[in-house]
């Protein structure tokens, strides 16, 4: 528990430290005075209204003496109040009782220190002393490690395939393998996943095969999506992974709705939904977090704060201290985690899951990481960030290499295993793509099914008309559409 609440102690400490400074301001004026003295901009500090207000902790004396002019009010107030915050003076308003203070004190826009980040392994893959984390068996660790390697290899090969023109589009999750695999490993198959689009690792962990991934990317007959969607828009009911939808952050309120359904069923499961730093700007983010707290929905919000939303860096995305501080604003328990530390991400997700289900509450995890790859195959990120920066994160901050050092250090893995694994996975992937390319495309009737549960008469007619047209004018239609 101590880890999760350390942040709140820091904030109150800061506020208490500043109260001493604010004490210099003449505090004996009652609240209505504040408004009347601020009616004209000039009265604030006599000169430039655009100077930051001084009651945030700098010089206060000039300001203080000009503000509170009513001596009578001051004396009256002095009779009633001492100084600073008065715990015994409470006000009753809708929303509950709140303590009264006669200090005018604005909560600063930023804490003096950022919320610290939970990590278990240092950059060399050594366990940091005095930490708390969920222990892991050799079997689990190796499964996690090989999944991370598989994900990285899959991304590399599919990216290359797009460059060769074999698939139309691809989105990699290079650099974010730890978040993908560790969070998935901390869940059970009954937990429902609503992802954004940079989390194929979660599906991979759950048993989606490389062939199934290839089928979706090539949009062939074996694709569970019947060739309806762009590549990487995977979905699989049997893996409890809802089909990816492109609009950003729409999955967040949907996740809360699904969690509400789980809650009504009383299931021992939660919903886990992923989004990026950019997604937190959408209106849906606000609605989802607010609602989840009100409904007490068992949902885990995992934010992959990877620093970039296409070309928008986080400094242009928001001015808060990342996403983690927003959780408390909605009444949601939150934690910031080193997203490139597989053990930390695993432990935090495990703990969050316990809380979400046992306490029926939402939890927010902000996983700090870096988007090593381009946003997608339609992007060239060297146009807006330095190659050095990308290289740094690709090499010295690689989450897979770091986890490998820990696994190696335990004597569970070696170079020979590594070569074997990478060779095997690469071969499987190349084979999967070859097979997928040869599978037929979806048949014509798949154009018209699933618009509604039952095909309506107008679509039956349209399909018939189309078939007639193909029969009469075969040269006008592609030859590879099975009729």
């Amino acid at each position: 528990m101590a880890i999760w609440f350390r942040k709140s102690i820091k904030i109150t400490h800061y506020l208490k430290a500043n109260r001493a400074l604010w004490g210099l301001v003449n505090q004996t004026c009652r609240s209505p005075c504040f408004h009347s003295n601020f009616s004209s901009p000039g009265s604030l500090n006599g000169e430039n209204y655009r100077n930051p207000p001084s009651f945030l902790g700098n010089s206060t004396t000039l300001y203080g003496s000009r503000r509170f002019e009513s001596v009578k009010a001051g004396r009256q107030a002095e009779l009633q109040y001492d100084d600073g915050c008065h715990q015994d003076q409470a006000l009753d308003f809708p929303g509950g009782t709140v303590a009264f203070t006669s200090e005018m004190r604005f909560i600063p826009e930023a804490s003096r220190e950022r919320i610290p980040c939970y990590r278990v392994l240092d950059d060399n893959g050594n366990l940091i002393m005095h930490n708390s984390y969920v222990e892991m068996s050799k079997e689990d660790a190796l499964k996690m490690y090989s999944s991370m390697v598989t994900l990285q290899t899959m991304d590399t090969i599919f990216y290359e395939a797009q460059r060769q023109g074999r698939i139309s589009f691809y989105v990699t999750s290079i650099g974010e393998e730890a978040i993908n695999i560790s969070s998935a490993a901390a869940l059970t198959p009954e937990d429902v996943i609503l992802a954004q689009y940079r989390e194929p690792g979660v599906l991979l962990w759950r048993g989606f095969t490389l062939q199934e991934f290839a089928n979706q990317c090539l949009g062939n007959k074996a694709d569970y999506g019947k060739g309806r969607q762009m590549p990487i828009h995977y979905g699989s009911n049997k893996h409890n992974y809802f089909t990816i939808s492109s609009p950003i952050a729409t999955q967040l309120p949907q996740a809360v709705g699904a969690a509400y359904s789980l809650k009504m069923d009383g299931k021992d499961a939660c919903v886990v939904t992923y989004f990026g730093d950019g997604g937190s700007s959408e209106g849906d983010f606000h609605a989802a977090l607010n609602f989840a707290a009100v409904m007490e929905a068992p949902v885990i919000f995992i934010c992959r704060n990877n620093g970039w939303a296409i070309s928008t860096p986080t400094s242009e995305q928001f001015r808060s201290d990342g996403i983690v501080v927003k959780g408390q604003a909605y009444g949601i328990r939150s934690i910031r985690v080193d997203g490139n530390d597989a053990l930390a991400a695993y432990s935090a997700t495990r703990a969050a899951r316990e809380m979400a289900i046992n306490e029926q509450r939402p939890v927010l995890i902000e996983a700090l990481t870096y988007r090593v790859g381009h946003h997608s195959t339609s992007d060239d990120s060297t146009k807006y960030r330095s190659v050095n920066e990308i290289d740094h994160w690709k090499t010295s901050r690689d989450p897979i290499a770091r986890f490998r050092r820990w696994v190696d250090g335990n004597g569970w893995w070696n170079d020979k295993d590594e070569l074997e694994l990478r060779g095997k996975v690469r071969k499987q992937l190349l084979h999967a793509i070859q097979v997928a390319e040869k599978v037929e495309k979806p048949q014509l009737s798949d154009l018209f099914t699933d618009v509604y549960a039952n095909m309506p008469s107008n679509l039956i007619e349209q399909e018939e008309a189309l078939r007639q047209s193909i029969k009469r004018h075969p040269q006008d239609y592609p030859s590879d559409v099975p009729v």
Partner: protein
Amino acid sequence: MLGIVRQRIARQGINASGMRIQSLVCASRDYSSAAKEMTVRDALNSALDEEMSADPKVFLMGEEVGEYQGAYKISKGLLDKYGPERVRDTPITEAGFTGIGVGAAYYGLKPVIEFMTFNFSMQAIDHIINSAAKSNYMSAGQISVPIVFRGPNGAAAGVGAQHSQCYAAWYSSCPGLKVLAPYSSEDARGLLKAAIRDPDPVIFLENELLYGESFPVSAEVFDSSFCLPIGKAKIEREGKDVTITAFSKMVGYSLKAAEILAKEGISAEVINLRSIRPLDRAAINASVRKTNRLVTVEEGFPQHGVGAEICASVVEDSFEYLDAPVERIAGADVPMPYAANLERMAVPQIEDIVRAAKRACYRSVPMAATA
């Protein structure tokens, strides 16, 4: 906003008495002579109640649906009966609760989402179209969305531009959605039940001014298994000279227009569309092939409206049968004004329908395009 609600409820009595004469005429023809009456509000309330009782997965969500008994009292008594888990009051976020409703539908519940008016559904339209309408198709049948979006649609009285738009045309253009527009209490009950039972996302367009109106209903309508088929229009009044299609409130206006036309020797057939998507093209075309003339009536904006689609459908399927160009009656091509006199001129009136029918019958001197 809620002050306006109270005013509207008071004013409905005037309309209701006017309608009662008309509905009694219909009663003698279509229903048993001992006709019972039911308001549209009660029809909707009872339909919700019965469907929630029959299926524990059905739940209601929206602003003010619980404690306040519904902004228009449609969900009166439901919170007490089913509890806060099944009648959920929400924070003010259409995008939020629509997304949540869709998510709940993804995972097996059957939400009925209420918009205080469909004008506010625009704040949630991404979830309605991109999440609800397209999900079954995009997921190849893995994600079905058995959700109903309901609420008042179209003009009320004196509520201005942002509370008066009709969304029938917008939603009906989108494959994956079903769009229903009830008129009478029988429509309201039967279609809402059908919508809740339907596995596809349904947009259910009610009308604020019709909530308080009373209609006679036959005994079978009261049965809890009563249901109307989606995609079938109803011939409210048979005729042989001109076909008038309408939905929602305009059905009442069209029936009154038909009365006036009858006195002048024009026998009008009034079709209550009931279902805008799928549109009952068969019924419309069969009627036009009988009468050879068509007037489409709607409250919404004229461009790309429901009438435009009906006209195209008839021209495609029954061109040789038309004896006159199709007449379209629609709302004025302006955001709805507030002043009562201007509002009256921005919405179709009975006289507009009468004049259009006469034009279609070549019984009036053609004029330049009027409202």
